[in-house]
């Protein structure tokens, strides 16, 4: 008897929960309202069946519960009833399947006027390629992927020279223009999902998959990877910015073409002006980039050029050093403005590369064994010897300033660094830093890195 009452209670409760709970689909921001309609239809049909069968069962349990003198009926089969139930079920199924297939028919039929954009996934970030002025993508091959050619572009293909390469995880799209995303992966399976667009598709190395939609609402949407792609899967985030076509065009124009990126690589810094520019930095970071603890300036000699560049750009762009609690970052941000253009940054970084790389003094103590265990997670990106991996956007830590490392881990953990919406790699690190429960864990970890 209680079981029947509980079943009735759960049926009513589930229906009430469904209608009053604040947890439901996030508002649609694409053309796929038909997907939402199909879901609604499925809800009504399955909801009816859920309520009807369970209430019938509860009723049967109440009505036919055992009592002395009662006896069950003997009723092996009832062909008529079974036939009706089969027909009724089939009709219900067709009512859900037919509209579903019609909408799927639209999904597999990419509109001819759809804008073509390539999404390139890798552990654990996103990049994009637009076909450029000629409207055609140049040839690519996984075999051609190198540090200098992260998209694997075919150098000799004239079509690819004007392809626009976007190495940030942020994609811009013009509003109300159908877009077909061509999905590629460099390494493992990934998945392109923006909840508000409703459609998603896996990205498979060795092939190009696709999905299409028309963004219909301007705004910034979180992009998530939804195919388990390794330990930092949950940090593989990006964003899609839907904006007016003019803004989109400006954004495209602000990104380099493939040939631009090749020219930039060939750039040779001018040694004298580099030294002059570094003089400002030397006041705090030392003449050899060795860092100065009294001025809260970390060692920068020996750090990879790509990481220094990224951080300088972050400081300049307000992605770093803009948090109110980031006191030392706030000091660095205005200093970075001294490097007024890319050439200045190139120069100063080239100069830093000429410094001797002596290990920074070790000041942090902790439980090295405990730190070693924790470091197993860090090693996936930063490398087994904390040497840093450019492909993972993970800087070198071994031999660098330990008190600085400690402070940054605290900043990442407490949301002082890595919280700017465009600081995607900082955000990744803040996900990871949060697994360090307390200051002791941080010290243990830094103490272990000191041994590498």
């Amino acid at each position, binding site marked *: 008897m209680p079981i029947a009452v509980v079943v009735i209670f759960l049926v009513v409760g589930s229906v009430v929960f469904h209608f009053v709970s604040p947890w439901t689909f996030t508002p649609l921001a694409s053309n796929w309202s038909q*997907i939402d309609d199909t879901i609604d239809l499925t809800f009504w049909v399955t909801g009816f069946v859920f309520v009807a069968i369970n209430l019938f069962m509860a009723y049967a349990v109440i009505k036919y519960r055992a009592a002395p003198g009662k006896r*069950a009926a003997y009723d*092996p089969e009832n062909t008529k009833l079974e036939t009706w139930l089969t027909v009724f079920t089939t009709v219900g199924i067709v009512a859900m399947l037919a509209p579903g297939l019609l909408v799927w028919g639209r999904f597999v039929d990419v509109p001819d006027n759809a804008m073509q954009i390539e999404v390139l996934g890798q552990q654990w970030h996103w990049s994009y390629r637009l076909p450029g002025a000629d409207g055609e993508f140049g040839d690519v091959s996984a075999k051609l992927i190198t540090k200098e050619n992260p998209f694997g572009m075919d150098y000799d293909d004239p079509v690819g020279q004007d392809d626009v390469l976007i190495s940030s995880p942020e994609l811009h799209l013009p509003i109300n223009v159908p877009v077909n995303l061509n999905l590629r992966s460099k*390494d493992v399976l990934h*998945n392109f999902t923006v909840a508000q667009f409703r459609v998603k598709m896996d990205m498979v190395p060795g092939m190009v998959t696709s999905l299409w939609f028309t963004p219909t609402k301007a705004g910034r949407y979180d992009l998530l990877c939804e195919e388990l792609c*390794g330990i930092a899967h949950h940090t593989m985030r990006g964003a899609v910015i839907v904006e007016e076509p003019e803004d989109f065009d400006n954004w495209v124009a602000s990104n380099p073409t493939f040939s631009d990126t090749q020219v930039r690589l060939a750039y040779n810094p001018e040694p004298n002006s580099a030294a002059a520019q570094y003089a400002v930095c030397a006041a705090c970071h030392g003449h050899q980039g060795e860092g100065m603890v009294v001025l809260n300036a970390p060692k920068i000699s020996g750090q990879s050029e790509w990481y220094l560049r990224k951080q300088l750009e972050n400081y300049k762009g307000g992605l770093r050093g803009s948090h109110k609690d980031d006191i030392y970052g706030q000091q660095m941000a205005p200093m970075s403005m001294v490097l007024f253009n890319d050439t200045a940054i190139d120069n100063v970084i080239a100069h830093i590369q000429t410094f001797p790389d002596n290990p920074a003094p070790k000041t942090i103590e902790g439980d090295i064994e405990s730190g070693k265990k924790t470091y197993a997670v860090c090693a996936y990106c930063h490398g087994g010897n904390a040497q840093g991996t450019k492909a993972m956007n993970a800087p070198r830590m071994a031999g660098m300033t330990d008190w600085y490392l400690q402070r940054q881990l605290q900043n990442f953990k407490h949301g002082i660094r890595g919280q700017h919406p465009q600081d995607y790699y900082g955000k990744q690190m803040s996900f990871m830093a949060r697994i360090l429960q307390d200051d002791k864990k941080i010290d243990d970890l830094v103490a272990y890195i000191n041994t590498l």
Partner: protein
Amino acid sequence: MAFVAIADRDHEQEHHDPQTFLTKYVWSQDHKVIAIQYGGIAIFVGLIALGLSILMRLQLGFPNTFSVINPESYYQFVTMHGMIMVVYLLTALFLGGFGNYLIPLMCGSRDMVFPFLNMLSVWVYLLSVLILLASFFVPGGTTGAGWTLYPPQAISAGTPGVGMGIILMLVSLAVFIVAFTMGGLNYVTTVLQARCKGMTLMRMPLSVWGIFMATVLGLLAFPALLVSAIMMILDKTILTSFFMPAMISAGEQLSYNDGSPILFQHLFWFFGHPEVYIVALPAFGLVSDVLATHARKNIFGYRMMVWAILAIGGLSFVVWAHHMYVSGMNPYFGFFFATTTLIIAVPTALKVYNWVLTLWQGNIHLRVPMLFAIAFIFTFIHGGLTGIFLGNVVVDLPLSDTYFVVAHFHMVMGVSPVLVVFAAIYHWFPLMSGKMFNETLGKWHFWLTFLGAYSVYLPMHYLGFQGVPRRYFSMGTTDFLPESAQMLNASITVSAIILAAAQSLFFINIFMSLWKGKKAEKNCWGATSLEWLTPDQPPKHGNWGHDLPVVHRWAYDYSVPGQEQDFTPQTVPASEVPVGRDHGVTHESMLEEFQEK
């Protein structure tokens, strides 16, 4: 020599009863002992998997609070939890456990047809479990690729356990499949060849039908997993490129060329979807028998139930790619697989109707096994209906890879089969042990399990609607999730901990009852099927004493019209009770007419 059925040669056989402790309980060839060995090992690893799920839930409910859980260990927990639960617990328990125990008893056989092979099966199964558990202790730990083990990530840098972990996992699976095949051939052969006199196929209890069909599915589906495991081991060890395309890993070029990750997914799900029914069909069968016995009523629409089992089994081989709608396979496949998937809902729905109609006009005794069986119908309806969302390709688009999927498959192939496992253990415990379990403790266990499970999985669907992805170590902040989503996660975790803790009541009940439970009466539920009719309870080696039983009617002659007793065992001949489905009188209204004759 003309073929003579095994049951007809019974008196020519010599029966050697095992003499020593070792041959009786350890190296036993008795299907009942093997069943308990299978069940014991399966439940033991199942408990490990349960513990892993609690560790995962702790991280999801209270992110970054516990230092043993980091992204590396989290994904290892996810993987091992899934793999153990699906393969090493549920498959082994339903087929190796219940299959072994019930098939010979329900079919009226003395044992499995190949007892030695049967014994070998359980020991090889144990070996596969040991290999699996060993992978926890190798450098790098177990694989963290998710139970689907998708390449390239399963064997390339960035995933936990890409060294020995994944290799041991694949080897363990291969060994498991060997064990399963030895057992499976036995179950199929025993059902087809060793039924006692009069036990026609259409008189068999649905438990036997469910287990039989599941075994056939297993024998056809596991080879796909076996070859993919072997191919992946080759990709990993000697750098073949079955599943590995040209790719980079951590910035370095690998030497693979032109392999297809999607090929693996097809092979995996060609096994993986039937696997769902390898778990579900035995549950369907067992629950049918529990329902009929405790409702004192024949199972409604028996023939339809048998055909539904066969249809579901057949169809389960043509729906696999509904797990791959967003995998990047040719999207036109979506039309085919959505259609086949929704077709399979028809026989499945019919089974649900027939269970409910079995209760209708029954005389329902709400004992512990029956409570679990009714709860199963409830959760299975829920899980089945959410399957229609995911099977309908376009509805799957927003829901795929979210918590909706997690909620769906846990409801349909986690909670539902486990409720049947409990129903079945409580139902057959008096037979297996000769002791009665404690009813009060059983009810406490039931309520905490049923309500606990529903409060874990109902809210999880709604996390999925919001777009929370599965297999995320932590969600962090997003622009589309309200903060209350984390609250929901915390409440799910609390429910899960209560649910897990409540399982101790089950073990207390079982062990206390074994130790000093009161002696169970023979055929305490008043069942009709053969397993309750053995001369001894629990049945001894050889099951049937001197003579094999002879069957005269189907397994569901409950409350036969005109009979005082509300059950008529299968062995009662027509000369004693000349009514029932197999003797012309199929409805009360025909009784008078019959008596007049």
